[in-house]
């Protein structure tokens, strides 16, 4: 994860490097649908499949940002649709708390929580496009590389 994130080209050719945690039951299938339906979205996102959005610990998000990811997207099933009944409710609490912690560092806009169901391939591509645009406006992740 760390090696991959830091190889993003610097300077003018810079493209955002977004890490997306997608839940196995909805969002990953949604991404799959976006693929088979050939909905276009920018290649700025690296998708990581997790079993549930509540699997995503705040530590993972902080580590991704620390190691140079420009944005982190956490995607799960809509509230009420969770495969594990209320996993996404827990995820919402966690991600919101992480956002508050990141707000102190000025990084809260680089974290996003979205609900994308398995049938929303179009929405997946829209979310990625929108998030990429936002990250482009924010610019590169301000973490300094330390030797």
């Amino acid at each position: 994860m760390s090696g991959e994130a830091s190889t993003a080209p610097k300077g003018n050719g810079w493209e955002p490097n977004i890490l997306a945690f997608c839940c196995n039951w909805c969002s990953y299938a949604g991404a799959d649908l976006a693929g088979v339906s050939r909905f276009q979205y920018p290649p700025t996102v690296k998708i990581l499949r997790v079993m549930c959005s509540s699997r995503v610990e705040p530590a993972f998000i902080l580590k991704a940002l620390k190691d140079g990811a420009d944005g982190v997207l956490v995607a799960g099933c809509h509230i009420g649709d969770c495969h594990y009944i209320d996993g996404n409710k827990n995820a919402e609490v966690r991600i919101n708390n992480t956002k508050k912690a990141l707000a102190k560092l000025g990084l809260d806009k680089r974290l996003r929580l979205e609900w994308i169901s398995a049938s929303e391939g179009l929405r997946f591509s829209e979310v990625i496009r929108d998030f990429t645009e936002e990250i482009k406006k924010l610019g590169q992740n301000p973490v300094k590389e330390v030797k």
Partner: protein
Amino acid sequence: MRRVSKTSPRSSIYNANVYGLDTKDIWTCLTCGLCPMECPQQVDFLSFIKEEREGKQPLEVAHLGVFTELADLSSKLDGTAKPESGDSKYGYFPGCVDSLGLFLHDVKTDFGEITTSSLKLLDKIGIKPKVLQMKCCGHDVLWQGKKDVFDRLKNYNKKYIKESGIETLVTSCAECYRTFSKDYDLGIKVVHTSELLDKLGLKINADVTYHDPCRLGRHMGVYDAPRKALTSNGANIKEMEHSKENALCCGVSSFMNCNEQTKALRIARMNEAEATGAKTLITTCSKCLAHFNCLKTEKDAVKKYDFDVVDLSVFLARQLEAGK
């Protein structure tokens, strides 16, 4: 730690320094400072542990290292916060209570109340400090062997303190107090809130018991100030079986080793507190507070404890509010 697992300071030193072995003993140590208290040769075991851990990978970090990651992340960012202007010679550093509240929301403790209470009490005794928006003091990363991260945090914080122009740094956290006093060379006075609270003039009239956090007690030798803050305000302290120099550890320091052994230690300490019959257990460290309250809110706990665990400044501020 020896109460609950086979660990020996002597074998740790032998394995590391004489045989040159990688040993997990240096990571299971709680750095509570009880061994150097007992040692007839006064071996500085804590410094040994701190040096030995430097640059190595910790065996186990609790909460998946979320606090370590947060400190590491903030150490790599340019801090934007500027010190408050004003001519106050006191600075108050709240520590990491905000992130404790955010990432330990299961523990059901209002950590932010420590900050508001401390400021209220300082106001009462006529101190109007600047609230310092520094980065983490770096205590946890230092004891987890991440000296590089600690150095980055330290450099930033030292610059920040210099710019703020304060002459006394007040902190309500025992760990921050230890770190600013011993691991930073600030050249200004560092005090813990408990050292300032003996002249509030409250009449509490309640039985309480006091847990000495290792960082405030054995590391810094502050045993009497928090007790005086309680007794001079009318509280009646019922000491536990082990107190002051011999106080048991709350089980976890610098967010390492949350396992069966450390939980056994925590239960032992809570049982001692229960045996005193006091209705309130007071401590001066936000980590001790988190760990005791974690045990209290555990779903499948073996035993339920019916006393409150609160921070000293929160306790005093609540009494002040109640008009006592």
